[in-house]
């Protein structure tokens, strides 16, 4: 998959250096993936994806307190990164 807006990931890693390795790993896994449909994304990131049709996917890692919001166009092999921030699931877990 081709990542667009990857500079958002870099900027967040600069602000939170402890997340840098994790974000690099995320980027590497996404770039190495070849999703044909949204189900493939869900299959690979089963535990962490929040899908909002038609093409919005958020990758939410509560343990890392990280949420990466994207749009995915599987047919063209594109992942557009919109934002990186704290996890929503972690917020929900903490009353």
């Amino acid at each position, binding site marked *: 998959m081709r990542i667009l807006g*990857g500079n958002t990931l870099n900027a967040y890693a600069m602000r939170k250096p402890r997340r840098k390795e994790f974000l690099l790993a995320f980027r590497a896994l996404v770039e190495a993936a070849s999703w044909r449909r949204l189900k493939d994304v869900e299959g690979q990131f089963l535990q962490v994806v929040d899908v909002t049709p038609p093409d919005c996917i958020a990758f939410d890692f509560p343990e890392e307190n990280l949420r990466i919001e994207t749009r995915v166009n599987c*047919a063209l092999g594109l992942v557009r990164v919109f934002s990186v921030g704290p996890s929503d699931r972690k917020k929900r877990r903490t009353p």
Partner: protein
Amino acid sequence: MSKPIRPIRTEADHAAALAEIDALFAATPESQDADRLEVLSVLVAEYERAQGSAISAHPVEVLKMAMKAQGRTQAELAELLGSRSRASEVLGRRRQLSGAMVEKLAQSWAIPAALLSAPYSIESRLLRTLKIGVAILAITIGLGGAAVAGMFAWYGSDLPDTEHIAAALSGSTANVPGFTPLQDLPPELIKAFLAAEDEDFYGHAGYSGTAILRAAWHTAVSGKRQGGSTITQQVAKNVLLKESPSLKRKIKEIILAQRLEDALTKDRILETWLNVVYFGGKEYGVTAAAQHYFGKAPGNLSVAEAAYLAGLPKAPNVYRLDVADNRIRAKERRDWVLNRMAADGMITVSAARLASAEPLTVPGRN
């Protein structure tokens, strides 16, 4: 007709391209929009690659991320790799992912082999052992420190505070028979006691950590109890504590010594000590001792006599001359005090030699 696609050279170009990509993002394949989107995405990706760093992901982080993404546990990894220790070492970066492991992970968990194959450095066993050793040491020191602090707080809670000590000692020793103010004692006598008992008296804060550690070491090694108390601690022990020797008393002694230092001046503490310290028999205080052993007032003592008296409080019954023939040991002790005085610059070496040459006699008993 859409505007022509331009190369991306600046952040503004990049932002404009991303905005157009967002507008076209839902384009279906084979459409004009899709073609434009594809060209724009190539340009954007290339620009971002040039702007970003070329650091590749760490294989172990990729593995961890893939495990989190799929909700896999370390136990499952252990099952896949064949042992718990292997899984733990891989995740802790203490073991390289072997070719066989990479193959298993790629086949069973669909993690791209290329991402797991990059070489990386692992922590050596020695370094790890050192780190564990340092951590254990730090924890031990921390817990030990907390325990000591807790003991000090516990034992200190029922001891008199600074105000009570100041009030209790403000006039008490003035009522001691034969009480002699510090200014009435000759400087050589005071110097002799400081040399024999606590040469750093005017420098420490009531106790000497070095002396306590040295005494504790000596007691542990030889089995014989050694002092290590400063003059302030001795005042605390003799005037304010009535307990028999124990670790508890030693701690209380240190706490009280610190409070004494806050409550009284150094001179006042020294004066108190000189007037209550035990010299053997029924003799307490330097004036009584000078009278008992030499039939003189303190102001009339020679340097040699002052040094003898200064050596007595350490072990009065071992060095006193009035009940047994302790002359050899007593002279050794006196000469040691004289040497200390000379070494500390309190008297000259020649004065110390002259004093050492004086015979050690107690009037009326020799």
